[in-house]
């Protein structure tokens, strides 16, 4: 048990779903290894689950890190209060330097509260690391990704949530497998109970056949302007119309067409972003696209930072001009 002490270490909280380790966990390990270069400290992985043994062993094998499996009957499903109280109990007497958590729906749910209990700063949505004048800085997007803020922590322990997709999985190496330790936890009754986790909507849309995605954002302004997007898609072979979250929230397109962290992740050969600002939650669903063209009235829009071609125009006037020019050529 002694080597499982978390004092002075970099702790990674594994994320898993229906018995599978989520990719963000390996990204967190990669992030922790990067952090380790600036702040040498051992990396420990914590995995919370009803049984934890299978997950812990699998993590120790694939990452080569020491893994502490924390088990409790209440962990059959994710619950924020249960996570917070178990992690607090484990970490409070052995304060780690860093606690690395996914900036996912679950990670963002418990990280701030856990940080407060640990009297730690919580820096969320971290996408990069740097050192400036001996201080480790954690970069995060502000103002829809138009500006990058380098944050510093003033506390002994720092809780970080890492933006999915910012760090690939840690490189493959032939590592001896890490040690595994299991610990049963008792959790006192909580004021919140998770009842179920169920698929809400499944998608029949097959994006793999779509070479091109023409995507509409809030910048289309009115539902009727979706016609422009459809017209544009109709002249591009093998294309599908999709959108950012606001367009789906407004009911203008169905949920299966939402691109982003809470929608689909797509990698078409061409992604045409029309009136989309480029917030991280959207970008994580489309940044792997082969070629990206963005049309936006705002020259500072974050989407331009990951576009191959940037067009500063009002889509309402530009798309008709584009269609006209195309029909003249055909």
């Amino acid at each position, binding site marked *: 048990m002694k080597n499982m002490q978390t004092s002075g270490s970099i702790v990674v909280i594994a994320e898993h779903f229906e018995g599978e380790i989520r990719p963000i966990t390996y990204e967190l390990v990669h992030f922790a290894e990067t952090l380790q270069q600036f702040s040498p400290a051992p990396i420990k992985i914590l995995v919370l689950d009803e049984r934890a043994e299978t997950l812990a062993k699998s993590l120790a094998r694939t990452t080569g890190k020491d893994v502490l499996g924390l088990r409790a009957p209440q962990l059959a499903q994710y619950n924020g209060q249960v996570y917070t109280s178990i992690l607090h109990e484990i970490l409070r007497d052995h304060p780690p330097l860093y606690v690395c958590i996914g900036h996912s729906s679950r990670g963002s749910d418990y990280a701030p509260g856990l940080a407060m209990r640990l009297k730690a700063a919580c820096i*969320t949505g971290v996408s990069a690391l740097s050192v400036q004048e001996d201080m480790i800085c954690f970069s995060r997007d502000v103002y829809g990704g138009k500006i990058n803020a*380098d944050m510093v*922590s003033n506390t002994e322990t720092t809780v970080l949530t890492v933006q999915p997709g910012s760090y690939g999985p840690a490189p493959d190496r032939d590592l001896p497998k890490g040690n595994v330790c299991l610990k049963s936890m008792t959790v006192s009754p909580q004021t*919140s109970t998770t009842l179920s*986790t*169920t698929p809400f909507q499944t998608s029949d849309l097959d994006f793999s056949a779509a070479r091109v995605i023409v995507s509409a954002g809030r910048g289309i302004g009115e539902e009727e302007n979706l016609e422009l997007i459809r017209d544009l898609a109709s002249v591009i072979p093998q294309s599908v119309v999709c959108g950012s979250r*606001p367009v789906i929230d407004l009911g203008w397109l169905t949920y299966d067409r939402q691109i982003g962290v809470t929608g689909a992740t797509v990698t078409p050969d061409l992604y045409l972003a029309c009136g989309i600002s480029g917030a991280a939650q959207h970008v994580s669903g489309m940044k792997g696209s082969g070629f990206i063209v963005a049309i936006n009235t705002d020259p500072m829009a974050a989407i331009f930072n990951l576009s191959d071609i940037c067009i500063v125009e009002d889509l309402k006037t530009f798309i008709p001009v584009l269609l006209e020019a195309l029909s003249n050529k055909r």
Partner: protein
Amino acid sequence: MKILVCVKQVPESEAVVSIDKDAGWVDVHDTSVFRMNHFDECAVEAAVQIKEAFPGTTIHIISVGPERSEVVIRRAIGMGADHGTHMVTPGDGFVDPSTLAGWIASLSEASDADLILCGAMSEDLMQGQVGPLMAEYLSLPCATAVVQMTIMPVGEGVHVEREIEGGYREAVALQLPALLTIQTGINQPRYPSLSKLLRANKLKLNTLYVDAMEDSAPLQGVRRVTLPRKLREGVFLEGSASQKAEQLLTILSDRSFLTVL
């Protein structure tokens, strides 16, 4: 039932922002349009719907921000809230989220509330922290990214669905008092009614003055702000709209996404 809703004024996404080197923070150009954070609008709407279903419900609005943010409180009252508190900050600088959460949690409207609603995040700072931190200050159960909620019969609290990745939802039962952060899509926020807006504009808000500079021990700080890194080449097409259209057609046909003659 007493509901507290936290709202924030943010610049619209098209706002011109630049780096203020002296302040070490972001400068939002004066000509920018400011509005209520979309996530908070959904939180206000959710509260108003509860009030419509449960007569006797009162809704209090709190906003922390510079003088100009008062309008979002009045807008929320125009949508159907009852009262509002404005914690006035000297400017728009970065405030440690735990300091901010502590300010709001210290209000009697927070400790007396049966339900506290916040947006899932603010569109400018994008931290998603003030809600869950307040819940911790007040020892309340908390659920984030709520896309559906039902107030249960007295004594049975509130049932919510949280949105998680991959099209899944997590159903959670919380005892009241509770804190929820609201995800967009839960509802379509209404426009304020004219008569309610008129009342809102006459209403005297509670005004308090707070200053982050007096926070001697912030847990985190901003070291510097920079323009984001370019991840791709990002060629800006030049010329008139039709010149840009011509260039784009050439690029797309060169890459065989389209066929032109």
